[in-house]
């Protein structure tokens, strides 16, 4: 008998079941555990108080990203205490660490892929909801809480109930000026912020296949904004070309054997999904969020919509927006290029290309925060830092920065920001701050125009 056709996520799942029993969640093996300073200290304390050790420090790696300063100035003593805790915990439990000041330091979802640790077919976890980023390589990557971080440290496994499967197929050619960020914002607008709950989304179709690995990471990164447990894209030649030669990628015979295995991972012909969504790439435009959740977005060609419920009314009041206002008439005070969604070298190249020979609009604050120190170094080798600085952008050190405002990079109350990050929640970038989610191209063009704009508008 022919084996049942399986989806990508089902294949990866089945290969990681350590223990299965009726009426219990499956116990999955974890191939890679990424750790950062904010969600780990209580987990290490838990290990200590129970007298437990870290089972596989060699499958664990830590960095500092959430509250690291990205500019000069005095360090917040409470943040320093949290970073010191991570340093001490990694020393005590023998976990490799990339601390601030190290060339390997950066946002946890940027450094995993750049080191080649993120590989197809792995189960990857991290105490951070944007762990879904790593699904761009065909890994099953899930965000977990601190109790689960402790569980993985102690056992290298995680009990998980089987997710449902969803296929989001984006077919056709993306129009000029429309990028990965616009695709995922359109997907979230379609299925809603809770639309993916309980599901692993597999992104498919010719428009997805045409994206670079960086674009695919942008898409998978925001799966959680649709509520999904994970987002995945089947590995292909684009994936393999990106990975070959990375420091932790297999080499020689191991590379060949890995390739052979990775090629078995894509969803089988005839496999079925619990839910399917189709999107026509040709109909997409650059998107801008107008509200306080990532599902509240419209085309840049559109206007601020009339509220349809109390949630939308509250969002408009918080954002200080009037229905009917053209999106292009909205004038941000600040432009932020960065975050685990859009801070990779491709994002910086795209923004710099638009800014070359242009100036940030008078009175507007603009900053670019590379996703990792390696991205920063690469950008500086290419002279991109000079382009940003000449245009009037601040050029910063690597970190999460203004995506969540845990460090001094914050919005003031009512300050309006065009941001390449992933969440426009109330107060996300600073108490009372107003966030509009956009692509790096729109962010750069907006910085020049002084109002929401595409590069073609300049």
């Amino acid at each position, binding site marked *: 008998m022919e084996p049942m056709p399986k989806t990508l996520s089902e294949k990866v799942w089945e290969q990681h079941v350590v*223990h299965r029993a009726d*009426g219990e969640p499956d116990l999955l*093996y974890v191939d890679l555990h990424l750790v950062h300073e904010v*969600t780990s200290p209580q987990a290490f304390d838990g290990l200590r108080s129970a007298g437990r050790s870290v089972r596989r420090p060699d499958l664990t790696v830590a960095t500092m990203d959430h509250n690291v300063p990205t500019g000069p100035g005095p360090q917040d003593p409470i943040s320093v205490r949290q970073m010191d805790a991570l340093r001490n915990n990694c020393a005590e439990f023998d976990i*490799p660490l990339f601390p601030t000041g190290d060339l390997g330091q950066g946002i946890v979802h940027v450094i995993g892929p750049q080191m080649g640790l993120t590989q197809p077919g792995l189960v990857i976890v991290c105490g951070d909801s944007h762990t879904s980023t790593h699904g761009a390589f065909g890994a099953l990557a899930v965000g977990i809480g601190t*109790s689960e971080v402790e569980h993985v440290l102690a056992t290298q496994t995680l009990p998980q109930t089987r997710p449902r499967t969803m296929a989001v197929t984006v077919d056709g050619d993306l129009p000029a000026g429309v990028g990965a960020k616009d695709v995922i914002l359109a997907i979230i607008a379609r299925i809603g912020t809770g639309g993916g709950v309980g599901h692993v989304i597999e992104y498919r179709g010719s428009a997805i296949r045409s994206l670079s690995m960086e674009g695919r990471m942008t898409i998978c990164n925001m799966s959680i904004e649709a509520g999904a447990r994970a987002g995945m894209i089947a590995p292909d030649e684009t994936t393999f070309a990106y990975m070959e030669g990375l420091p932790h990628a297999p080499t020689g015979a*191991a590379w060949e054997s890995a390739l052979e295995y990775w090629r078995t991972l894509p969803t089988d012909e005839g496999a079925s999904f619990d839910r399917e969504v189709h999107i026509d790439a040709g109909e997409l435009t650059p998107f801008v969020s107008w509200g306080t*959740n990532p599902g509240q977005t419209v085309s840049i060609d559109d206007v601020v919509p009339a509220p349809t419920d109390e949630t939308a009314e509250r969002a408009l009041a918080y954002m200080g927006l009037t229905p009917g206002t053209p999106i292009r008439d909205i004038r941000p005070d600040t432009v932020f290029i960065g975050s685990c969604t859009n801070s990779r070298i491709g994002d910086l190249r795209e923004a710099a290309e638009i800014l070359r020979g242009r100036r940030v609009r008078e009175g507007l604050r603009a900053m670019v925060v590379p996703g990792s120190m390696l991205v920063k170094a690469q950008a500086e080798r290419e002279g991109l830092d000079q382009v940003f600085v000449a245009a009037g952008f601040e050029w910063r050190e690597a970190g999460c920065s203004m995506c969540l405002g845990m460090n001094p990079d914050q919005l003031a109350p009512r300050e309006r920001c065009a941001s390449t990050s992933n*969440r426009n929640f109330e107060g996300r970038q600073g108490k009372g701050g107003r966030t509009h989610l956009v692509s790096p191209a729109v962010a750069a063009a907006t910085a020049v125009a002084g109002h929401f704009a595409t590069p073609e508008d300049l």
Partner: protein
Amino acid sequence: MRPFTVHTGRATPLDRSDVDTDQIIPAEYLKRVERSGFGPFLFDSWRSDPTFVLNQPAYAGSTILVTGPNFGSGSSREHAVWALEDHGFRAIVAPSFADIFRNNCTKVGLLPVELAPDTVRSLLDLVLADPATEITVDLQTRTVSAPGLHGAFEIDDFTRWRLLEGLDDIGLTLRHEDAIDAFEAARPSRFPSTRR
């Protein structure tokens, strides 16, 4: 973990949908390295509004939060659960929860109770009309009851058992240590190591 069997208490009505974990506990309060002390920062921004429901004396001391769909969306921060628990909540009643938040709740012993939207609406109306209304959440029978109202909720048998007994997940997993050893022995050596 603190066991949960049956709990009776008054409720706070938070009549909003898509309440994300950034609202439950803003990032600026995540710098603590302890598990305790987050309660005072629960819904920090909204609490600066004197009319916000958590500031109303009528709801002080309530132990059940009744709220809208997709509660706990966004960040994976377990600090959100710690803040709710520290404030004194034992159960959250909503039409739906975000996955990571729900998971985090069941690791800590804060009970996520998913009820049909119209039942949650009736509960909200009941508590808004009379803050003294007592609600009983019974994990043994998987039911919620209040005057003139009775609802059943679903929770898988395994999670229910863990919560009823207050069992530590790590202890449960370590019963399968042999299976973990065997799995590791069979893993291909080309899988990445963070040391190399």
